[in-house]
């Protein structure tokens, strides 16, 4: 958060004032309170459990509040193989998230289908939903997930606050239509 001006209190009974720009404080709030929805379908989800628990501790990045309802989350963490039967469910869950929403594609399967090079497996979830950060690996180390969260934070920091109004993004989303 860029701080433009700081007015320190003259006495200890007075409150101080910090001035900044609105979009900067909104971004600061967004990037440090990502609520992940783990869309775990395979072994990657086990790695994610390690990231949430005390050893790696994703709460250091403000993203520890795991929610299983898309209404209460703003980050879909797709951890595992997505097959064609599951694809409409993933799309619907993404649609149900309120803006702003972010997607991390975790592991080889979610990113590219992995070694499931066949009729059943979606060859990359970016064919269904827009992805912000891809994590390679099979499965990725917990550190890689933390790295992805930091990369996403950097991205949020760079983006305009009204990022989701970008037409290109809607193009990608609308390509795969539900019902």
């Amino acid at each position, binding site marked *: 958060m860029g701080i433009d001006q700081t007015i320190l209190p003259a006495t200890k009974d007075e409150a101080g004032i910090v001035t900044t720009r609105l979009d900067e404080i909104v971004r600061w709030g967004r990037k440090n309170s990502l609520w992940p929805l783990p869309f775990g379908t395979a072994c990657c989800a086990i790695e994610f459990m390690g990231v949430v628990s005390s050893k790696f501790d994703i709460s250091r990045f403000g993203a520890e509040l795991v929610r299983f309802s898309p209404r209460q989350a703003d980050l879909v963490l797709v951890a595992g193989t997505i097959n*064609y*039967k599951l*694809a*409409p*469910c993933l799309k*619907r869950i993404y649609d149900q998230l309120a803006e702003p929403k972010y997607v991390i594609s975790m592991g080889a399967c979610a990113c590219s289908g992995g070694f499931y*090079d*066949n*009729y*059943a*497996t*979606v*060859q990359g979830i970016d064919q269904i939903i827009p992805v912000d950060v891809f994590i390679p690996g099979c499965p990725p180390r917990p550190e890689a997930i933390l790295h992805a969260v930091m990369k996403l934070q950097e991205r949020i920091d760079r983006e305009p606050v009204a990022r989701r109004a970008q037409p290109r993004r809607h193009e990608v989303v609308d390509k*795969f*239509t*539900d*019902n």
Partner: protein
Amino acid sequence: MATQERARHDALVAELKQRFGARVLDVDFAFDDCTITVDKAAIRDVLVYLHNDRGFDFLMDVAGLDCMNLPSFRERFEVSYMLYASKSDTRVRIDVPVSELDMDVPTVTDLWKSANWGEREAFEMFGFNFVGHPCLKRLLTHHEFVGHPLRKDYPLMGGQWCSSTSDMTEELNEPR
């Protein structure tokens, strides 16, 4: 142990050959397993006999097989029934050659409940029509999926985009 099992298999094969004669097309022993190939006209009778009179109380799996371009096989498709008799600890596999032109196979869901999902899987993957099955619809693939993906002439990368979500409420509410 293996010789005991072989003795049980030999007795079973002898009994089947006596009862069904030429309908027992082939018998094969490999790795302590016994595979009996049976003509489709007699498959229902053979399985009823094994279930009712020989104590094969557990149908472990129903599998399909596409033998396209394999000259040693009788017909293009085969259905395999993996059977187990828990009292006598005997396993046997029953194979049925199925022609591409006539995919009808009698169901065995009334003998073993496990045949229900096994036959549904074989149906969706290969296209067998299990006559008399209570609910012959797709099990693993999406209900909008067209074709039978484990057939050799189905394209390997023939994924199909499906638009609607589906649940398994009907399966969960099935009477047990």
